[in-house]
Each structure stands twice: as C-alpha cells, then as structure tokens.
C-alpha cells in the first residue's frame, strides 16, 4: 500500500462484478456482486449491496450483505444493516436495528464448570 493512496471507495453509481482482493480498506456504497477476499477493513454503507461471500479482517455493515461473512477480527451490523448468511468472527456485534439472518460462529471457551453437553460453540 502506498501512503499516497487513499482508502478504497465504491461509490453509489458503481457496480462491480467479480472478486475484490488484496489488502486495504474499502467502503462500498454501490454494488458488488461476486466475492470479497481481502485483508483489511470493509465497510458496507447504508445503500450498498454485496452479494457473495465476504472474508476480511473487519466488517462494518450498515447496508446489506447476501452471503457469509468471515472476519479475522470483528463483524459489526449497524442499525439498518443486514446480513443474510452466517457470520464467522471472534467478535460479533449487532446493534439495535441491525439484522442477521443466519448463524453466528464464534470460537471461545466456556468456564470449566459449565462446559457440559453443549460444549463450546460449533
């Protein structure tokens, strides 16, 4: 990444069909259909739509994602945001007004005295 380069931005009028990869920070206000597989932060703006699996370091979703979201760090669904798909992350937050239609997969330990039949998360 060049210091000269600003962060990535997919504006409202733009639609991408394909795979976004590499490393960086990108905000999407337009449309992306395909796949995101990127190290860095992805921000999905209010009017944005992403169709396809997403794998990033951090995702902040105020718009819509149709597809699974996998984050090394965290996934946040903001008010008005919606994910239709499963979320895999070590940290997941759903704000009031955010919607997740799918499962949450988080790896963590339970205290010894409660880890019974339910065990740890799948």
């Amino acid at each position: 990444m060049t210091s000269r380069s600003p962060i990535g931005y997919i504006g409202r009028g733009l639609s991408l069909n394909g795979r976004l990869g590499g490393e960086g920070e990108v905000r999407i206000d337009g449309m992306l259909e395909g796949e995101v597989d990127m190290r860095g932060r992805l921000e999905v703006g209010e009017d944005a739509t992403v169709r396809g699996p997403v794998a990033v370091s951090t995702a902040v979703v105020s718009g819509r994602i149709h597809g699974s979201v996998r984050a090394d760090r965290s996934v946040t669904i903001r008010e008005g945001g919606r994910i239709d798909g499963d979320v895999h992350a070590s940290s997941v937050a759903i704000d009031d007004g955010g919607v997740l239609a799918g499962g949450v997969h988080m790896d963590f330990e339970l205290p010894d005295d409660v880890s019974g039949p339910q065990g740890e998360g799948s």
Partner: protein
Amino acid sequence: MNDKPSIIPAGVTFRGDVQGDADLLVFGRIDGEIRLSGALVVEESGSVRGEVRARSVTVRGVVVGDAYGVESVRVDDGARMVGDATAPRVLIVEGARFRGRIHMRDDGSPPPRAPSRRRRRRGGRGGDDDAVVEPTRLRESRGGGDARDVPPDRAHRAERPERAERAERPAERSAPRRTERARSEPAPGSEPASEPRRARRGPPPLAMPRVGRTRGQRRS
C-alpha cells in the same frame, strides 16, 4: 459522478467488470472491463488490464487494453499503455510510453464497438492516424484468448514488424491473423498461406495483434 470519486486503493485488486455512473480512481489494480459514464483515472501506482470506456480516460500508471473516451484519452508522462486509444481528443504527453493505434473522432458519437475495423473498411488507410504502430508483446493481456474474432483487416495493421518481439509471441496468438495477412497482402518475410499452422511460428508482420482481440471476445 454524483459525489466523490470511487477509488480502488493501492494494494487492492479487483478481478471482474466494473461499470456505472461514477468517477473512478485506480491506485490498485483491476483486471477486467471498465465502463463508466464518469471519468477514469489510472493513477501512477495503478494498473488496469482490460478494455476501458469512460467519459474521459487518464492514464498515469499502466493500462493494457483499448481505451475509449467519449471526451478524451490522455496518457500522461510516465504512464505506460498498450492498446488502441479512441476519443475525439487523444493526448499522449511527452514521456508517456504508448503502443497502439490512435483513433480520433470528431463527430462526438459514442465510441463504436469495433472502431478500428469499421474504419479500415470504409475509409481505408489514411482516414485514421496510424500514429503509433509497433509490435506488441503483451501476451499476458490476452491470456487464453483466441483470435477467432480478429477481423481480417486487422492484419494490415502491421507496418513495422520487429523480429525480436514477433518471435517471442506465442504461436496461437498470431496464427489466424497471420493467415489472413498472408492471403491478402503478403508481408515481407511472411510465409505462404499454404502453411498457416507453421506460419504461426514465423515472425508475424502484425503490429498490434492483441489489441482489439479482447474486445472481440467480450462482445461475442
């Protein structure tokens, strides 16, 4: 267009097609076709492989593919471009490296689909400026391409074959063209059309074999 320009930042790669009503700055990399009603700028650190169409196209980094500007195509100092540039105004700034043909149209009509072909047909030579005609060897730009769609007349493009580059070119790429060429207007050093397959190996006398091929493929 509407508000701030879209940006593909350095470090980020997009493979696929980009289109829409927006201005786009490419600091990273795009492999695929770009169609914008706004302006496209391929910044110094940026590269694009594929056909680009925009209101205006500015190249400061690298573009491999044909560029169509409704208003202009500009290849800046330090930029590298391989492909045809089509626009009412085409600017090649001193210090730019460019390989391809220039089509300047002054009728203001939207970029034709296959301008070089039509122009060749109708206007014959001289209608367009054959500004730069040099052999190309960006084979990677047309990975997996075949030359089915290459119009025969493209064969005439090659005015100044350069052996070194020709020899390096993958065989299949230049074959069909080669054959056409041999048929219509045997070039210096070209082999007879009777041996088209083999002819691939030989130095094809074509200047811009790949330019335009992507276009043909995509359209089909």
